[in-house]
């Protein structure tokens, strides 16, 4: 791996970020995290209140990488075949032909995913985990790169089906966008006054380029002590007194991949413990299942991760 490839990742990050910044105001950090997920081949759960730009972020990312974008509006009557695709009878050919569903895209937005029934939610598992779907006994590979962006509203729970732990664990990151500041909201109004900027958004890279960069990210060097730190951090979530179910090995793998992607976007060919610390909350927090008494006391998973970040030894130098 040469420095040229690493700098390509950094350039890609800057190009896509500045492209998305034309649409999204003040969400540079979130955009970077989204790119981390894209470069690591992961999927993102966007959890926030309505109207803060979740859909717009997904659309602008799709436009930036000139990938196919599709949107699934999840409702209780949505069926698995509505998203994976269905075989219909072609009268001309006299046989059943598979008609692909909205999952056959590069950027898929599953809006309000917790409104879909558990059956439909489960149909996303194979797509998220293996990048393929199976319909009528036939397996179809999905487009590459494949990024599923699911949104859910953390306030309204009536008529929703909370995501099971198995599905939450398959999300690489959980992000929140938050409300914009006064100046940022003012800027949003200015930009959208006449014409939405997304309509003029040009692509700055290609899906093939993203795939290539994914391989570059996977080859970022991770020193033994950093890998050890990731494992210890993940393991410490399993023995925390407030946690019923800690992060899985998939969680530690996600943290490793995310740290590699972050390092590459920072134009670095090695991972630092600082990268791990910066990403631990967004990668691990949603994988924890807290004890009932902890939930009743209002303890949140991110605060537990932060607490562990202050407890687990980094493994840098020690006082002699």
């Amino acid at each position, binding site marked *: 791996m040469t420095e040229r490839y690493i700098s390509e990742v950094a350039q890609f990050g800057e190009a896509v970020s500045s492209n998305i910044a034309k649409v999204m105001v003040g969400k540079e950090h979130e955009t970077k995290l989204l790119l981390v997920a894209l470069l690591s081949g992961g999927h993102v759960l966007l959890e926030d209140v309505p109207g803060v730009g979740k859909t717009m972020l997904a659309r602008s990312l799709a436009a930036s990488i000139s990938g196919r974008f599709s949107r699934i509006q999840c409702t209780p009557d949505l069926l698995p075949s509505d998203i994976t695709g269905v075989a219909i009878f072609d009268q001309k050919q006299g046989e059943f032909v598979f008609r692909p569903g909205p999952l056959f895209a590069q950027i898929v937005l599953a809006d309000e995913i917790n409104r879909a029934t558990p059956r439909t939610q489960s149909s996303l598992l194979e797509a998220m985990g293996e990048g393929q779907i199976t319909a009528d006994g036939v397996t179809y590979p999905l487009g590459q790169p494949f990024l599923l962006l699911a949104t859910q509203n953390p306030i309204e729970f009536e008529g929703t089906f909370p995501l099971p732990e198995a599905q939450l664990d398959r999300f690489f990151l959980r992000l929140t966008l938050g409300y914009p500041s006064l100046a940022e909201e003012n800027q949003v109004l200015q930009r959208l006054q006449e014409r939405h900027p997304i309509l003029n958004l040009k692509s700055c890279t290609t899906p093939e380029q993203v795939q290539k960069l994914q391989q570059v990210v996977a080859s970022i*060097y991770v020193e033994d002590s950093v890998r050890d730190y990731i494992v210890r951090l993940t393991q410490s979530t399993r*023995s925390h007194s407030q946690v019923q179910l800690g992060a899985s090995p998939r969680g530690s793998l996600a943290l490793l991949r995310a740290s590699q992607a972050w390092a590459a976007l920072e134009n670095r060919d090695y991972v630092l413990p600082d990268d791990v610390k910066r990403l631990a909350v967004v990668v691990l927090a949603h994988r924890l299942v807290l004890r009932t008494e902890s939930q009743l006391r209002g303890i949140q998973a991110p605060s537990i991760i932060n607490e562990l970040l202050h407890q687990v*030894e*980094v493994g840098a130098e020690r006082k*002699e």
Partner: protein
Amino acid sequence: MMVKRILPLLASLFTFAFWASAMKFSAPLFSGFSPPPWLWILLLAGSLESSYFAAFFLTPRTPYLVRLLELVLLFVPLYLFYGAFKLDLLYPALLVFMAWLTARSYGSQFVTMEKVADTLGDQGASTVKWEYESLTSKNAYGSIPMEYFWWRLFSFAFVLVVLAIVTRVQGASFELGFLGLLFVVSGLMLQGCVYLFRLQMLWGFARAEVDKGLPRLWLRHLGLFVLLAALLVSLAPVNYSPLTAARLGSIVAGLWGGAVDFSLPQIPSQEPVPPAQEGLDFVVEEGEPGLAGILVALLFLLFFSLVGLVLIFSLGLFVLALAKGEVERLRGLPNLLVRMYLTLRKVFVSALKRLGLSGLASLFPDERSSEIFTRLAERQQEPLGKPGREDKPTGVRAMLRRIINRASKKGLIYQPSQTALEYGEVLEGRLATNKATVEEFFRGYQEVRYSFQKLSKVEEERLLAAGSVILAQIEALEKGDSSND
């Protein structure tokens, strides 16, 4: 359930031992009262009947007439044995009634313990862990079943001690003998069995699959433990000569007064032993003074060390038998006990081998010990967030260690959970040196530490120079004028 059948027996024996001892102690206080043999039988019979009836037959709907009948059945023989209704009858009647009442409360407590669902509701298995924890910790919402039994054991023992002292003050003998032994044995057995019973209730409620041989094993180990305790109580000398309380008191008094005399006082053997003073006096017969006294003291020390080792050995064995396949999960005291047990066992086996008793030593295979040791050590070696040891660093890494050491002395303490960059930021805010120097050093350090590329000699020297500047700045700091926020 087997334990449920044993529990009332133990409770009634414990109750009998307590009230019979109380009766024995209090007899000299009532002039002319000497407990007749039938009173002992009545106490035991009343306790047995009461605890078994409460544990198996008594319900809130049991008519009061039945309860009254129980008392009548108890008091009529008392009246018949006594031969007449006199005022003297009141005291033994009170004793029998109290024993009956105490045993009744134990029996009712066993029934309460069975009603786990009443306290746990429909929370199911998830609550059981909390309940299990509550066996050993204090419950914020009220008295937990185990506490009930502990408090009774201790308070009854305390009452007996007070009665013994009062009796001694009166000038009477205060030896407990068989009753004391029965009190200790039945009390400890009751504790152990109640614990098992409580766990069995919880397991049953949570539908947990527990090894069926566990209760038998539990009882076997409990029996062993209680046997050791009984041996200790029976064989342990109450005369700790030459280390008597009086002698220790005199040494302390000597230390206090400045005139320390560690030598044992020489009491001529021809002299008559001074008679025990009236009143509360724990001074007991003095042992042989001088060298013989020291030898006796050493023998006592040896004896108690042996007893301690036997206790540790049996407790370790007990914990190990309970933990079985989950030995690596043990922490704290149980972990220590198992380790000590394994060490003792290893020493024992090697001693047998050295003595040429290899055949006997082969009965204790050492492979299993080493396997358990490894499993215990695995857990120990990987505590929360502790990285493994590594080679001693050199160059830039060694420079950072020096910086950390020096800065720590000045109050800029490096936290193990801090990254180098975070620590660098702390230093940046405290040192008068150019911020770029600190940043340059720490950025360079990160490359050395975490990158696979090697620094050139020139770059390394540049970083070491920056490190020296930082060190000099730290030296220039006044201790205490900086603190790590």
